[in-house]
């Protein structure tokens, strides 16, 4: 019982249908006594910690349901009560049992990882690099959460002063579920986690992205697509028409943003009259720049 639960795109339902379906299924499974809370280790590495903030924005399921009913959150630098050596101890203890590993942030390689020290163990600095390798080798399932973890993201933007890389580079032999986004949309993370806890690993594309969230181009479901088809383009931010000529990356970015939007479905970047900057596409940010152009079809002489 896994994979196709009728939630592969195009989603037929309303805004929260998929999330609610997963919650209902989770509750049912738990009531039936076959729902085992799994351990989750949430590792923050070189990044902005924006993915865990985004996770706190989750709804149906929300963060409270996640920590109380879905998983035992064994380690989180942002949220755990323990600090210092005791916190690091909890990280090492968590490895004694089966666990799901979620990693946000990139892995800094510079000076043997010393540009991102995440704690102290036995009197020595514990680098993000060591932690990623150590936990990555033991984890049952690994989620790379957000652009920095999936491919380096902004932390690895040129000239990449901290020599940051995505998680896969230091765990070449492990299969990762990749959730690109800057930050990740909380539905993408919580929905994927729910799938793992309930039915095992979700179906992914060849790049490791869950199909239920990342299969369809933004451009194909954009509510402003009719303007594109009729050649009506915005000339500045704030215009209500197609943002293609301002540099919109909707035509190359695969997410469900147009149908599910952000922050409980209240809005999304194109809804704010700004171009998609491709934050959930591999290569972000360098391959998606410039974010804002005043007419991409204008002839530029020296570029």
């Amino acid at each position: 019982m896994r994979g196709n639960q009728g939630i592969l795109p195009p989603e037929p339902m309303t805004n929260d249908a998929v999330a609610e379906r997963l919650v209902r299924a989770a509750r049912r499974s738990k009531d039936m006594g076959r729902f085992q809370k799994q351990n989750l280790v949430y590792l923050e590495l070189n990044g902005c910690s924006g993915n865990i903030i985004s996770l706190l924005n989750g709804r149906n399921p929300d963060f409270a349901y996640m920590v109380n009913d879905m998983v035992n959150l064994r380690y989180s630098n942002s949220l755990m009560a323990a600090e210092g050596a005791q916190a690091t101890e909890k990280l090492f203890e968590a490895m004694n049992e089966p666990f799901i590993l979620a990693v946000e942030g990139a892995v800094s390689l510079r000076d043997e990882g010393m540009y991102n020290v995440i704690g102290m163990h036995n009197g020595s600095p514990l680098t993000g690099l060591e932690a990623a390798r150590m936990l990555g080798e033991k984890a049952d399932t690994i989620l790379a959460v957000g652009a920095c973890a999936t491919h380096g993201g902004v932390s690895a933007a040129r000239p990449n002063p901290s020599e940051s890389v995505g998680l896969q580079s230091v765990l070449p032999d492990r299969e990762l579920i990749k959730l690109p986004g800057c930050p990740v949309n909380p539905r993408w993370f919580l929905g994927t986690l729910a799938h793992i806890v309930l039915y095992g690993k979700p179906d992914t594309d060849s790049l490791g992205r869950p199909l239920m969230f990342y299969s369809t181009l933004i451009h194909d479901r954009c509510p402003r697509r009719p303007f594109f088809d009729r050649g009506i383009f915005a000339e500045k931010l704030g215009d209500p028409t197609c943002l293609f000529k301002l540099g919109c990356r909707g035509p190359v970015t695969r997410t469900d943003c147009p149908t599910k939007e952000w922050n409980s479905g209240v809005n999304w970047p194109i809804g704010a009259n700004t171009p998609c900057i491709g934050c959930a596409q591999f290569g972000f940010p360098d391959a998606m720049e410039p974010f804002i152009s005043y007419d991409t079809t204008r002839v530029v002489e020296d570029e």
Partner: protein
Amino acid sequence: MSKRIVVNPLTRISGFMEVDVKVENGQVVDAQTKGNMFRGFEQMLMGRSPFDAVYFTQRICGICSAAHSMASSLALEDALNIEPMEQGRYLRDIIHCCEFLQNHIRHFYQYTLPDFVKIEQNPLFQADHTDFRVPAAATAQLSRHYFESLTISRRCHEMLAILGGKAPHNHGVFVGGVTTKATAEVVAGLSSILTEVTAFIEEKMVPDVYEIARYYPEYYRLGGGYGNLMTYGAFDRYRELGTLYVDPLVWTRDGKEPFDERKITENIDRAWYRGAKNTYEPDEEMPEPDRKKASAYSFVKAPRYDGLPMEVGPLARLILSGDYTNGVSAMDRTIARAIEALKIAGIMKTLLGELIPDTDVQAEYTLPETTAQGRGLTDTTRGGLGHWLKLKDRKLSFYQIITPSTWDFSPADDRGFRGVGEEALMGTPVQNPDEPVEIGRILRSFDPCMSCATHVSVSGKPVKTIRVF
């Protein structure tokens, strides 16, 4: 009897910090705060399109990303000689208000509360000390509020996204103000959520903070530090509304005086950087990282105002605005954050009342052919934030960022002044060196965000203590 205590990681902050203190006869006699991460945004921004700075710099911080969109937009407007419409300022500042509310609520409930209250049984809340004094009934209520606050802080980000597209890392704040318009639906939607958020702050958050203070009164005497206070100004100097919160001001032993941005310098004597100068002005030098620099101990640089370390943040603002007079301590800082949340909610309500529906504040902006430079200074959730930028050939040729946590968590400088957070730890009695709960409580009262940060302990030269307040 001397003992060294290292806390690493200092959890429940944004980013990575190590604290290294020396305790003699049960009291802290030396302290170092160390930023433990580095990404190098200033280097990354070189050569990029100037407009991209607004979205790019938000990635410095996940909890206060809108702050960076504010400072970079202001810096670009300065460089491009663009004066935003007042309606644009109102809308942009409303987005900023949403971030203040989200940040302050999360900082108190998710980051601060577990220091004082043993929240319900969950592996996440297993603590290692036993200094929990709040009685059972109040503990149960505060635990409920921990989870209730998650809905409220999420609602704050929903408000932010209504105008900004998404949060964290919004798209709405831009040169000229914002990219969205106030419509009746937007104004009513924001007002409706704001009513809910205001009620929570008033009825739960502020009383909860005082409830904690009741059981931990010694924190009114701990964590004071220098007492030098600074703000770049917040929600200030509107053309018609005047100042709704606080003007740019500093407070030192010489008293209160207007803030003068020309007095800002940055020092890298004890920071892992190398540059042509050890002390420089924000727009003249961008040092390169050097993790192997032996005399350094942090990736955080040391900004100074007129040569002095300055505390920034909610308490500094409230004292400088005259809204709070109790004093400077760890507990005062935590109380100030809750009181400020209520004040910000009021300012947001005022700004919402000033909106003219369907005003388009955007234009097509052009970049100068030659060179230009600009700076954007504004107070944000944690204190004064500055972006300094230069343009050449329509690209960014220089970028400097000094964040509030750089002010509060700098290392020592070449004149012997400790950082503000380090100084706040001096003299702190540590009851049990194996459970040094006092250290984290004091440092968290500043709401640290180690967006550009550090590590490695060096036994430094003796630091001379200079009381300036």
